[in-house]
């Protein structure tokens, strides 16, 4: 049986090497590419990303990848957005003015609350390991978290967070200052994780492994 062809989209930002190495650690070869043709033919696609939302979208647009990624999503090819890559799946972001996203998952990207539920200031960005809880009404079956355990910790680095319109698309949250912050969202074969699975030790590799087995 041939291994699935996994493409990590290279749009010029972020720590792509780590994503690629983590996928390889899961026993799957990957290609990094910014080519429309290569990405279109993938069996699985990872959209990573570190940095500002507007820069990320601008890079995808200039490479002609917006329609390619939308088609992948529409065709049901498994797609995983990581961090900024997750946020770009939504309709728009409020980071430095409003910027349009890919519009694959309905919803917005908004700032992480600066106050905790008691009204105290929180440190922003939210940096570090945080544990996950099941989102209200969600199940982790048949998602990238199907082998994870509520309470598992992952590595987060972000100042903005995804808010899908449909609560059913929230799979896992983490708590920051008592506020719920989306940790994993999804719709069908499309997933986004706010944390970095490639930087979250064995618990993170499990999430990638699950994505690769979809």
């Amino acid at each position, binding site marked *: 049986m041939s291994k699935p062809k996994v493409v990590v989209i290279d749009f010029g930002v972020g720590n792509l090497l780590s994503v690629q*190495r983590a996928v390889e650690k899961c026993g799957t070869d990957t290609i990094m590419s910014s080519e429309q043709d290569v990405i279109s033919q993938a069996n699985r696609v990872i959209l990573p990303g570190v940095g500002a939302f507007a820069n990320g979208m601008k890079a995808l647009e200039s490479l002609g990848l917006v329609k390619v990624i939308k088609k992948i999503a529409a065709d049901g090819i498994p797609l995983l957005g990581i961090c900024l890559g997750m946020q770009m799946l939504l309709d728009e972001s409020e980071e430095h003015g409003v910027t349009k996203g890919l519009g694959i998952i309905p919803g917005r990207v908004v700032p992480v609350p600066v106050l905790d539920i008691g009204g*105290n*200031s929180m*440190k922003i*960005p939210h*940096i*570090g390991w945080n544990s996950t809880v099941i989102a209200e009404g969600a199940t982790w079956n048949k998602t990238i978290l199907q082998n994870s355990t509520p309470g598992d910790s992952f590595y987060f680095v972000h100042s903005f967070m995804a808010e899908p319109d449909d609560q059913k698309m929230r799979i896992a949250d983490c708590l920051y200052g008592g506020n719920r912050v989306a940790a994993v969202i999804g719709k069908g074969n499309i997933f986004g994780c706010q944390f970095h699975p490639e930087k*979250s030790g*064995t618990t993170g590799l499990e999430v990638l492994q699950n994505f690769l087995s979809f």
Partner: protein
Amino acid sequence: MKSESNIRLVARLDIKGPNLIKGVHLEGLRVIGDPEEHAYRYYKQGADELVYMDAVASLYGRNHLSEIIKNAVKNIFVPLTVGGGIRSVEDATAVLRSGADKVAINTAAVANPKLITQIAEKFGNQCVVLSVEAKQMSNKIWEVLTENGRERSGRDVIEWVTEAVDRGVGEILLTSVDREGTRKGFDVDLLHAVSQSVTVPVIASGGMGKLEDAIDAVNNGGADAVAMADILHYERATIEDVRNVCRSAGLKVRSYEQT
């Protein structure tokens, strides 16, 4: 400022050429062994992050860590910070392309504070760690040293960290040169003074002698993360030991099962 995240346990690896080394007061460097082997061991013990510092890079104006980092990311899946000899946006880009998640800057930032903003604008504040080598001059007054503790800068630590955060630093790696390698415990006064002055996370570094020192750094120093070197390199304790002691003291740490 409250931080809801777990206290991070950080393994610090000072590198000279191909070797992991350790000194006292950043001097008298002794070879410990192979960095890859040690780094992997700390990763397996549950280190939340690793910091690699090229101890002599500033001296020669270049960073030799790229190859070590490229190998590390094949087997180590936690955040990596790399410092030592990063003088430009191009240097930072090269290190990040090799697999680092953050860059630590000291000497070049003191000489040219605009470098902080330039790197932060390109990669985000979370990517820029200010490495501060602090030397106590009098009661509650510390001076910034550069060139891995070899040169005095004439700058006051508190004034410098405040400026650096305004310029875009996302985190501070605060090394007490007086305590570094001495096993006498962290300089809690220094930690407290810095963590009270800035809104970004502070990593305590220099002086971890016994497990309880980590608790002291957090509870009395206000540290968000604790860096360890000597205590790990000489196998006086494991990350797991530190984690257990912190947890027993009521500190929030990452849940981790060693495999």
